[in-house]
């Protein structure tokens, strides 16, 4: 049971793991048993100096996270030139902007379900997106769109070359196949350049 909880805490990462979800996976355990077990794991993790991880409370659940001392190392880590130049967050955000432009920050956050200020900031400084106007109505939110740097960066000639977005939420696998097909063509194009 302890190992299962540990595994699930890892997989759910920043999203956190609800006690209900643990109960769903280990139906024989009462909420009380689960909470006791996690409290014990929490304590063990804190006491264990050779572990860089700890468990924190969420409303209705828990989350595995790095210990506070790790912040300095995480900072150092991000300073290392990366092989993957754009983070998952930035890639998600730029995908939404490419398909839905012009789009406001609030609308992006609705799609992603998380704050996207930093990602937008990153994309702006890298020149992949720009402000393309203001929304009508109160607030007059900034609207974002992609730039020619975006096209260049992703190896596209025009925006029309973006693969059509299928109903990704319902058919994730088919979606990937469509991407694969597109990817072939994309590589061929690049080769000819």
């Amino acid at each position: 049971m302890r190992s299962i909880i540990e595994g699930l805490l890892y997989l759910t990462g920043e999203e956190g793991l609800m006690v209900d979800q643990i109960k769903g996976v280990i139906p024989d355990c009462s909420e009380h048993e689960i909470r006791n077990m996690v409290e014990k794991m929490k304590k063990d993790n804190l006491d264990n100096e050779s572990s860089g991880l700890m468990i924190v409370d969420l409303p209705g659940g828990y989350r595995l996270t790095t210990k506070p001392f790790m912040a300095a190392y995480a900072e150092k880590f991000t300073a290392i030139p990366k092989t993957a130049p754009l983070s998952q967050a930035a890639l998600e955000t730029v995908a939404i902007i490419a398909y839905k432009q012009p789009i406001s920050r609030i609308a992006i956050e609705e799609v992603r379900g998380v704050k996207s200020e930093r990602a937008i900031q990153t994309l702006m400084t890298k020149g992949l997106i720009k402000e393309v106007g203001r929304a009508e109505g109160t607030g007059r939110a900034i609207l974002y769109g992609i730039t020619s740097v975006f096209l260049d960066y992703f190896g596209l000639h025009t925006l029309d070359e973006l693969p059509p977005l299928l109903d990704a939420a319902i058919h994730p696998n088919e979606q990937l196949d469509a991407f694969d097909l597109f990817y072939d063509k994309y590589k061929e194009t690049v080769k000819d350049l």
Partner: protein
Amino acid sequence: MEYTVKIDAFEGPLDLLLHLIKKLEIDIYDIPVAEITDQYLDFIHQMQRLELDIASEYLVMAATLIAMKSRMLLPKPELPDEDADESYEDPEETREALMQQLIDYRRYKEAAEELRTNETERMQLFSKLPSDLSRYASNDTTPIPVSGRATIHDMLKAFQRMMIRKRLEAPLDTKIARQVLPIGRQMNEMIGTLRRAGRPVSFDSFFQYRDRTSVVVTFLALLELMKKNVIYCIQKTNFADIMIGLGEGADEFEAGTDAFNY
């Protein structure tokens, strides 16, 4: 002989031949041409009778086998006939070449089987998505490395993962959304969380279920607790996480669970 296997169970004529060799317990280093040809043709006929599509490679192999078998039945010419239009193909050489091809193919087929084991083992292992480390990044102005740029593929993969992530985030029991969430209970729940944490907790972490009702109720509970001085909120800088901690009024606070129902 009964054939219970379909032709698409084979990866081509070599695979089929290997199957027959194994089934007939033939020594691959000494293939009896007549027998293997008969068996192979039997199989192909059977498939044709079932009106299955047979790839041309199977028919080419059939022709090769028939040619080899018939030449073996003929006597060998005493001397090479230099005037002949076609040079004489020694059936022994053809047999040797086929044997080599089969042995070679079998080696890779076996290697592929081992890789299948690796693949299966690997598929049992799962990882989380990389954490968003942007809050640790000191500046985002680093130029994009040209050699390591992302592709459309990366972007769309990221998008797909986001969709899966959102599906996972949705409450498991959708009935929750229709239940009345008592604010009082939510308030108690939040205080409990803060007590267990023993330190301020981020504002975001209270909004795990993103359905409208629970967001609204959680937010109202927060406001109510703030008004009563049970909790306090701090934000260090613009856009930083808002941290929520227990305030002075926390000790004596007790919400009736039926209070403030919505």
